[in-house]
């Protein structure tokens, strides 16, 4: 095998000076070889990979080092023209966003073929579409990016990337943010497309790296290569949750239906969660999970059905509920950043609900400190604003703020999906702890069966607004009946989680 790319002694840092973001990275890649570039976010993976295209993000500067791809220097203007799109192709984190919204699909693919393909035969477009398994019909080619599905848009982007028959593919987190089903599909496609090409795969997802059969893995940490790949924290299933408590459920929803602009998104969903219990609601994206969460806390007015708190019927609209009822059911949302007021410090965010409970001003500082301790946050963070916090820290602040209301039930909507695995793990651990210590009921909404496996006693599987399967966690995971459940379980297995032993 011949050498396709060589990167040596790469140092990249802010143009304005300061600590380098990539510091002394070097590697070689033979043709047909797959290199995994791993590391946490911000470790310099993408920056390193982009040098193969001669691209440095604005604000950064190449300080030292050399890059050669197929013997050419991507940083030389004459060479880069021969490289981009022809020898090296790039697929970013959200390939669909790379499509020009103002131009038709066909035009974009044809342009790519005309500009880059060595042999631009008339059937080249069809061959590309076939390769990414897209319909070749005129009708499809006349559409605009917003008129096709996300999955199709991704395939179009792949087709465009492959138009120049590149020898080297650079893939940047190609499955990040995808739900289980799409991620799996994408991975399969990529495996096929990467056949016979050199690939640099940027990802923090070990399983994807494994799936693409990386020949070698380079791990970066704060811009420096480190020797050993970091081990994903082994997930230890929590001790089986305590038995469901007796008496009326803390929160119960009966035959809940809801719609968006008359389009039904929930159909007669019922669930109940007891004190100290965790009930999981799982399902692929778009199945209506978030609407369910918003119905429960009273932010979305259901079209039918009813909700009760410890036997008392709750008004559908939060504004009609009593202050006590409002505080009893708290929502923790997926977007930890969006859920925090960017202008408020942590202390201010926690103080507001405390003061709203009518607690005297003098007691507030003590309670804030207590809440921070409860979610394992150091008191030193108290004066920071959200942008100065990490994702995990923010989600803890969100939890602490919910706790400040002294709730009886927490509705957690995808609280871990935006977090790195390790940190998500820790947040789930915290939830278990709160459940145990405070007797909180938790409705855990997620698409991630791994989370379910460790925390929930019962699982509801939602698909297109309906509950398609329900039962104790163990039995659902070990014997999924509905095909959606089966897919979710398979995905979890890929990720390294088996069904817990019965």
């Amino acid at each position, binding site marked *: 095998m011949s050498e396709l790319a060589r990167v040596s002694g790469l140092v990249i840092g802010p143009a304005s000076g300061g600590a380098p973001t990539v510091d002394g990275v070097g590697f070689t890649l033979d043709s047909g070889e797959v290199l995994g570039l791993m590391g946490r976010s911000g470790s310099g993976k993408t920056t390193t990979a982009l040098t193969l295209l001669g691209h440095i993000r604005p604000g950064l500067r190449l300080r030292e080092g050399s890059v050669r791809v197929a013997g050419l220097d991507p940083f030389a203007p004459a060479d880069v023209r021969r490289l981009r799109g022809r020898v090296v192709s790039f697929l970013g984190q959200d390939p669909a966003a790379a499509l020009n919204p103002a131009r038709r699909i066909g035009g974009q693919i044809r342009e790519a073929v005309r500009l880059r393909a060595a042999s631009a035969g008339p059937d080249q477009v069809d061959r590309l579409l076939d390769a990414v398994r897209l319909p070749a019909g005129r009708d499809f080619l006349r559409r605009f990016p917003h008129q096709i599905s996300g999955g199709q848009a991704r395939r179009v982007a792949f087709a465009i990337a492959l138009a120049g028959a590149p020898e080297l593919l650079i893939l940047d987190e190609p499955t990040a943010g995808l739900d289980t089903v799409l991620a799996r599909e994408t991975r399969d496609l990529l495996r096929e497309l990467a056949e016979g090409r050199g690939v640099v795969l940027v990802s923090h997802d070990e399983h994807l790296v494994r799936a693409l059969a990386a020949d070698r893995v380079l791990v970066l940490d704060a811009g420096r290569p480190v020797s050993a790949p970091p081990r994903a924290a082994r997930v230890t299933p929590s001790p089986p949750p305590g038995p469901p408590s007796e008496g009326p459920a803390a929160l119960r929803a009966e035959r809940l239906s809801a719609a968006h602009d008359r389009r039904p998104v929930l159909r007669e969903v019922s669930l109940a969660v007891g004190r100290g219990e965790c009930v999981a609601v799982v399902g692929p994206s778009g199945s209506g999970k978030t609407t369910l969460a918003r119905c429960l806390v009273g932010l979305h007015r259901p079209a039918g059905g009813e909700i009760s708190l410890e036997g008392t019927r709750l008004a559908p609209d939060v*504004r009609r509920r009593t*202050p006590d009822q*409002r505080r009893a059911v708290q929502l923790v*949302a997926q977007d930890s950043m969006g859920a925090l*007021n960017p202008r*408020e410090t942590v202390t201010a965010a926690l103080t507001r609900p405390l003061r*709203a409970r009518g607690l005297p001003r003098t007691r507030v500082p003590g309670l804030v400190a207590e809440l921070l301790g409860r979610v394992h946050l150091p008191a030193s963070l108290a004066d920071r604003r959200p942008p100065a916090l990490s994702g995990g820290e923010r989600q803890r602040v969100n939890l602490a703020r919910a706790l400040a209301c002294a709730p009886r039930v927490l509705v957690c909507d995808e609280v871990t999906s935006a977090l790195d695995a390790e940190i998500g793990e820790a947040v789930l651990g915290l939830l278990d702890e709160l459940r145990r210590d405070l007797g909180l009921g938790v409705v855990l909404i997620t698409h991630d069966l791994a989370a379910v496996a460790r925390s929930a006693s019962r699982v509801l599987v939602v698909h297109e607004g309906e509950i398609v399967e329900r039962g104790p966690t163990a039995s659902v995971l070990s014997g999924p009946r509905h095909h959606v459940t089966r897919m979710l379980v398979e995905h979890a297995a890929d990720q390294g989680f088996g069904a817990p032993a019965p």
Partner: protein
Amino acid sequence: MTRRALFAALCAGVIVLIALAGPLLTDRSPTAQAGNALLAPSPEHPLGTDVVGRDVLARVLHGGLAVVALSAGATVLAGAAGLALGVLTGLAGRRTGELAVRAVDVLGVVPPLLVMLLLATGFPAGDLAVLVAVALVSLPFSVRVVRAATQQVAGSGFVDIARARGDGQWRILRHDIVPNILRPVLAETGLRLSASIHLTATAGFLGLGAGAPAPNWGRMVGENAVGFALTPWPFLAPALLLVVFAVSVNLLADELGRALGVRS
């Protein structure tokens, strides 16, 4: 603060200083006849005399207050009304909000100069008419920006959570909405101010607003244009001040927008 912003702030500051403290810098009356009309600059009259023989320097020093006060006043007026209307329509139901915005937009359809002509001639003469006209012309822009920002913030997670928690509308407004819309509103206010300067000066040029003897840079430009060929200073001096003021405010607004991360 960038160098550009610093420079712009300095220029704007000097102009505002001239406008505010100018009257203290000269003991000449801005309205008294000081000599023959349209005299060239001399030690006696550093900028010469105007078409009526008044000292141009004295008039320039007295004439900034009207422009600065009117444009700033109109901006503040439009900004305050825009903030209130924008937040209200932003939080109101979709249909009510749309309706209210349409109503305000009606004003935006009418060319600004038409509003000025109608109002400034219709109202009892005086600067109040100009103030109101300039503010009215600015209002639709102000409302639109505030409303868009409010809607964006109102749709964000933390407002949902506060609402779910039972925080009252006022509390949400004070803690969540207003602090988070200040950036675009502030940047927009800068742009409005420069537009207001523009309109105020034009009003002065067209002879709208308060009585003629009161010096006003815009009016001075209008009064003295006819004598431009004889001596340019009575025209150029106020014109230059106006331009420097408008440019520096515009520059400041740009820099402010950039610093606040808002695109103009």
